[in-house]
């Protein structure tokens, strides 16, 4: 028996030293199975992926995402400089409100996706773990000398996700206002376990929930405090992936890459009216043209019948014509059947279209469905 078909994020990491995160010992004490991911030892599961997935949809799950890069960009010229690097509108971005944006190359390919928040101490960015070193290099090169880029490497990042997350967090967080008063995509400073933290109401599961940036040396105390709440269990990377897939959220390195553009990826919402009018960001020529004229292929959701899953790399056919390729796929615990994200020729991308996915020599029927697969339940 062998994991022949597993998507191997570990391949590159194998050749480098695998690093540990602040909660490494904490995860092992909780019975986590640890795997290599993005260059770190990370918990893939505790009780089992499906049980953790279902728990998060019903209660609240605590995710350690400290492998992600937390950056702070500051200086008087920071806003103007960031607008030359990102297609974001900082003139119309309220303080403390995280916003989704994209790091693009000059051809409009996606180098990373990220969250950016205007805080008193500067612009706070959260970027993907596997890409953070490249992102830091890219930003250092692109930002002028009077703009400071700090990598907050002494910070951990936790996510508390699920319908009971607000009740659990409200019980233990203190601040100028109640954490439950935050709405989706709002944040602010709070205190947890006696430690100053930054909390935003956001996440990667489709559920209501929070992301908590905190000093690394306080991470174990905060994780203990949160997991002592009856609604909360620790959740591994396996369920994080199945939850985000059901929520239709793309994963960088799989559904997004330098080979995909924001419009193909269905992320045009990240470029608002002002930036569409002004341009002036990397890849603007291609992105603005695609926004105006459409794209030849796009990211779609596919629902499969039966139980056999289609995975990254599986080819998608319309009748006998190759029309696309799966970029993530797996069994959906909430829906009871497999689902997949794919890039597909726009002519065959309308919801309801019947397609086929080739898996190990067999064609599995698959139907195009609108995203998300499982409705979002954000606190708007």
């Amino acid at each position, binding site marked *: 028996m062998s994991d022949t078909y597993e998507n191997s994020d570990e391949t590159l990491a194998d050749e480098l030293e695998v690093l540990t995160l602040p909660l490494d010992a904490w995860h092992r004490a909780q019975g986590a199975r640890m795997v290599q991911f993005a260059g770190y030892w990370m918990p893939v599961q505790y009780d089992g992926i499906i049980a953790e997935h279902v728990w998060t949809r019903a209660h609240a799950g605590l995710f350690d995402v400290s492998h992600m890069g937390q950056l702070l960009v500051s200086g008087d010229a920071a806003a103007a400089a960031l607008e030359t690097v990102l297609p974001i509108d900082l003139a119309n971005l309220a303080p403390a409100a995280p916003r989704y944006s994209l790091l693009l190359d000059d051809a409009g390919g996606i180098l990373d996706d990220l969250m950016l928040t205007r805080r008193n101490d500067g612009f706070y960015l959260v970027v993907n773990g596997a890409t953070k070193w490249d992102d830091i290099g890219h930003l250092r090169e692109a930002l002028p000398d009077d703009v400071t880029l700090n990598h907050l490497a002494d910070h951990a990042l936790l996510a508390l996700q699920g319908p009971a997350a607000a009740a659990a967090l409200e019980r233990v967080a203190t601040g100028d206002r109640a954490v439950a008063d935050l709405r989706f995509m709002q944040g602010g400073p709070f205190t947890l376990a006696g430690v100053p933290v930054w909390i935003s109401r956001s996440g990667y599961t489709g559920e209501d929930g929070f992301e908590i940036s905190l000093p690394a040396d306080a991470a174990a105390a905060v994780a203990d405090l949160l997991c002592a709440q009856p609604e909360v269990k620790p959740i591994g990377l396996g369920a994080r992936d199945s939850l985000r897939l059901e929520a239709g959220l793309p994963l960088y390195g799989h559904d997004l890459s330098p080979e995909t553009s924001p419009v193909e990826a269905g992320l045009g919402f990240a470029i608002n009216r002002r930036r569409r009018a002004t341009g002036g960001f990397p890849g603007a020529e291609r992105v603005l043209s695609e926004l105006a004229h459409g794209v030849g292929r796009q990211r779609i959701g596919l629902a499969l019948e039966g139980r056999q899953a289609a995975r990254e790399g599986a080819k998608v056919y319309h009748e006998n014509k190759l029309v696309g390729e799966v970029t993530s796929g797996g069994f959906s615990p909430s829906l009871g059947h*497999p689902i997949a994200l794919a890039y597909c020729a726009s002519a065959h991308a309308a919801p309801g279209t019947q397609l086929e996915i080739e898996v190990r020599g067999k064609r599995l029927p698959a139907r195009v469905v609108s995203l998300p697969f499982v409705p979002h339940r954000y606190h708007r």
Partner: protein
Amino acid sequence: MTRYFTQDHEWIEIDGQTGTVGITDYAQSQLGDITFVELPEPGTTVRKGDAPCVVDSVKAASDVYAPVSGTVSESNAALADEPELVNTSAEVGGWLFRLTLSDPTELGGLMDRAAYDAFVEGL
């Protein structure tokens, strides 16, 4: 009846010329929740080391290798509706397929229970 094990975490239980094949409890614990099993059709001829069966878990699809050569005589129909039997009963009710052995001498290269347990202990 005698049960043998492979370094790839399959087991095969021999009853006369017939071998029943599954994955070990250790293997299922490593794979996690199993959501689908692709089973070989009866009549399929397999050689030792072929992968006539694939076990899908939430995170990955894994080949199951034939521990010895032979012809598939039966596969476990219960797994179509209950693939999780491979998790809950990997070494009994979660068996995968049966083979009529074509070369029983191949069994000599496999491990017994004690050797397999020691092998897993060393992983």
